[in-house]
């Protein structure tokens, strides 16, 4: 009735995968050692620093605070899965990844994967046509620690990415006056 090892089926970055894991493995262990996805960084390993944050069914989750065996049947997105294919053999970065580069929001890069997954999920979940507030940005990054860049450029990158997504939303949906004109 109880097991020391289990075989789990998970979808990691869109790819269905199977692995046999010791039940005491954390999700972070399975991602790094089982699947070779070392983009997920393990910092404090008790939930405080946020570096290991990944998306479980789209929700930011500390991969050091769930067991790999609990992920059976779930979908996981790591930092490696934030970019999208451009269908020409290349990759299109998520706006927050572009913004991190643009705004110099990283130095050593250790904390970066956790910031990127957390912020990407937060930005994807909000209405892009509404301008982001400083309070929203604070809440987005408040659960992640950065020990070298500091937070000013990371917050700047959040605002930059939100602005990019806002522009994208404007292009995607016609402005109200255009709609009036076509009637």
């Amino acid at each position, binding site marked *: 009735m109880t097991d*020391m090892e289990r075989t789990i089926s998970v979808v990691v970055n869109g790819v269905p995968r199977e692995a046999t894991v010791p039940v005491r*493995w954390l999700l972070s*262990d399975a991602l790094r050692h089982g699947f070779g996805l070392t983009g997920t960084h393990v910092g404090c390993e*008790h939930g405080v620093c946020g570096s290991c944050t990944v998306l479980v069914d789209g929700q930011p989750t500390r991969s050091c605070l769930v067991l790999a*065996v609990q992920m059976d049947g779930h979908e996981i997105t790591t930092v490696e899965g934030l970019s999208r294919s451009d269908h020409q053999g290349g990759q299109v970065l998520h706006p927050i990844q572009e913004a991190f580069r643009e705004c110099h929001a990283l130095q050593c890069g250790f904390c970066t994967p956790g910031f990127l997954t957390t912020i990407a999920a937060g930005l994807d979940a909000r209405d892009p046509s509404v301008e982001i507030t400083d309070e929203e940005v604070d809440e987005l990054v*408040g659960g992640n620690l950065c020990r070298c860049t500091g937070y000013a450029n990371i917050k700047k990158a959040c605002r930059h990415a939100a602005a990019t997504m806002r522009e994208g939303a404007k292009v995607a949906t016609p402005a109200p006056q255009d709609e009036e004109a076509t009637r």
Partner: protein
Amino acid sequence: MLGGDPHPVKPAPFSYADPVSVEEALDVLAAEGEGAKVLAGGQSLIPLLSMRLAAPATLVDINRIPGLSGITAGPDGVRVGALVRHAELLASAEAAGVQPLLGRATANVAHPAIRNRGTTVGSIAHADPSGEMTAVLALTGGSVTVATPGGREAVGWGEFFLGPLETSVHGPAVVLDAFFPALPARSGTAFAEIARRKGDYAVCGAGVVVTLDADRRVSSARAAYLSVGLVPEVHDLTDAVIGQPVDSADWTAAGELARGLVDPDGDLHASADYRRLLVATLTARTLADAGAEALTRMEAA
């Protein structure tokens, strides 16, 4: 394996079960005995495993049991199932409408990523006196439903919390839900805490309920504190402000009364005296907010 394991892990070895019914969970817990531990959200338990402060022989994961994930808000109060995540309770307008302390306190529980996984009932069963929801269960006079092989029973908060990380539940048992009574009429609430970083464990926190009489005078003022005692404690501060008009009540006096009633310990994060000072300040501040809200709700009713 020692020395030869290419992937060393931090938790001590344990076996794992993921039952699909409460009865099955109780069977496993009964069969495995004292070394078995229930796993819900795991946001407190898994760090304890990784630090090897806990080394249960068996983990009984209740996440695959159906029927434990509902929030039911009725006129009497709010019932929160064992698998309701903090984030779900925070997002529930129905729950906040019946008992506003739920949303207010939950907003202070850790960070969003932790709230996505951690459960309200799990944090109550964990019985950490620095937990927000333990304090709210106490302040609202709530209870939990505990399933044992002998049946299901409601256990009041006062009977449930015995000490830090210790409850009255022993042997095979699963906490199925927590019940938070509704906010009474002509009442307001407030919740505030002081932490080094928003979302971190509070150095001190306070939740309060103020109730007025028909003439807008204070008829009751009660407070519960975080990170102050060994178990959640509720203090009645009514004596300091009884009969006073709500808009000119001496909330500072109530804060001073609270300062004398609590008996916090000092630790690395704050001395006992500093915690008493925070109790006085947070009490006066939150009572004023709760009084103003009680008045607003009374006028709107």
